[in-house]
């Protein structure tokens, strides 16, 4: 078995074009400008993962929503489950930066990326 494909590294804005060849001998990566590119390509061809970010409603805050991100990337096929888990959540202000808001979704949790103070 031997497959060759081209990927765009999404880890930073450099957007390196990676040439990946998969064979029985393993996964070979070229075109990366840093070592992270190799890890990314290997992950991407075996089990692609992504961070998921969204917002949920907040009652009584200085802004009406709080933004969230997964504390670690989830498999791509889990993205929809994370969105479903957050769709109808409503929280109460105040919310601190980094506060865990939703636990145990697809092996990760969702943390607040914005501070919401109580409305004055």
């Amino acid at each position, binding site marked *: 078995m031997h497959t060759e494909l081209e990927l765009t590294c999404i880890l930073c*804005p450099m957007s390196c074009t990676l040439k990946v060849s998969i064979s029985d001998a393993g996964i070979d990566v070229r075109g990366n400008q840093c070592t992270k590119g190799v890890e990314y390509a290997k992950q991407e061809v075996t089990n692609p993962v992504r961070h998921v970010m969204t917002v949920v409603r907040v009652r009584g805050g*200085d802004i009406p929503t709080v933004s969230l991100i997964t504390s670690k990337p989830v498999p791509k096929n889990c993205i929809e489950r994370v969105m479903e888990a957050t769709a109808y959540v409503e929280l109460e202000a105040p919310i601190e930066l980094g506060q865990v808001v939703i636990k145990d979704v697809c092996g990760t949790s969702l943390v607040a990326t914005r501070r919401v103070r109580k409305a004055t």
Partner: protein
Amino acid sequence: MSNLIEERYDVVVIGGGPAGIAAAIRATELGLKTILLENRDVLGGIPLQCVHPGFGLHYFKEDLTGTQFIHRFFERMEKIGVEYITSAHVHSIEYRDYMEKVVNVITRKGVLRIYSKTIIYTVGARERTLFEIGVVGDRPDGIYTAGEAQTMMDIYGVLPGKDVVIIGSGDVGLIMARRFALEGARVKAVIEIMPYPGGLMRNVVQCLRDFNIPLLLSHAVISIAGKKRVEKVTVVKVDEGFRPIPGTEFEIACDTVVIAAGLRPNIDLLERLSIAIDPATGGPMVNELLETSIPGIFVAGNALVINDLADYVVEQGEKAAEGAKIFIENSGIPAEEWKPVKRGRNIRLAIPHYISGERSVTILARVAKPEQRVFVEVPEVGYKTFHMAVRPAEMIRLDLSKDALSKAEKSVTIEVKPIAYRA
């Protein structure tokens, strides 16, 4: 009853986004009496509604969301005690003389008249509108700029529509395509008039390909139809001169149109002072300390040039604050001679426009067209670096040392040359 308040400052920073906050922090740290003015009711500017990561990789060496990124600066502000006013609308700027400018501000407490030695102008950009991209037809509900859609979704938690066509493939458009898709809306297509995507490749991958959203390159939306709400758009293929190709028209049914056709520096207040403008950037002409053609008025962030990264915006804010310090200490920026930075082969724009050759400088440049395997060169100072690829969406950054720049006699030229190029 008149309620006029008069104050004196060394530095007035206009605009409380990342550039302005960074400038105000740096200026305060440098011991300058500084005030930061923001016209919205909260500080933070656009990053406050950017819930996606990709911020801080250069500046903090960490991948942060826009919201996390701007909170780091809020914390620094609090720590060193930066003075600021929100809901402060700058009505006008007056140039009195070299060391005195006046900023007239409408605040909740009354009209504030600030006398200041320097101004750092960091009001950001505005979004291009339908009128600027030549889309005709009806003007029903359901037409938003990408920034408006982002404010609705990520600040207010409101989904603007269900079936969406996005005009333009700049980064904001791509990121909003993903936000719509995540929230269960159908993004019918992203329409880009250029033959290549406007945003970063990583965003094309993770925002469009991940969600099977079609990207139509060399296509344009020519009209919008709908009575009360948007019902459909008409799309056409374009040739190399961006002219519609007759017979290629087709319609896409949708209830929402999002315009992500790029940003323009917002220079309204400066234009009234007859400041020198660079047609290539749409922003002011500046020297290496980001001082405009008016002595003591500095500009940073997207009001200067549309930046790819908030990290660069912050660096510009800090640079402008250092410029203000030098200006105040020397009653002007000391320089023997200002040498122009010239745009050579395949360079569409470059910042700054003038250098003294007496200080180290970071030049940000953008190419006119994508190329692979090239050298970016500044022949006058012997600078040459290899790039696997250059793209209009990704700024090139050149760090030039004071020593290298001292070799420049009349000017410096930034140019891009393919490996086997012969002039």
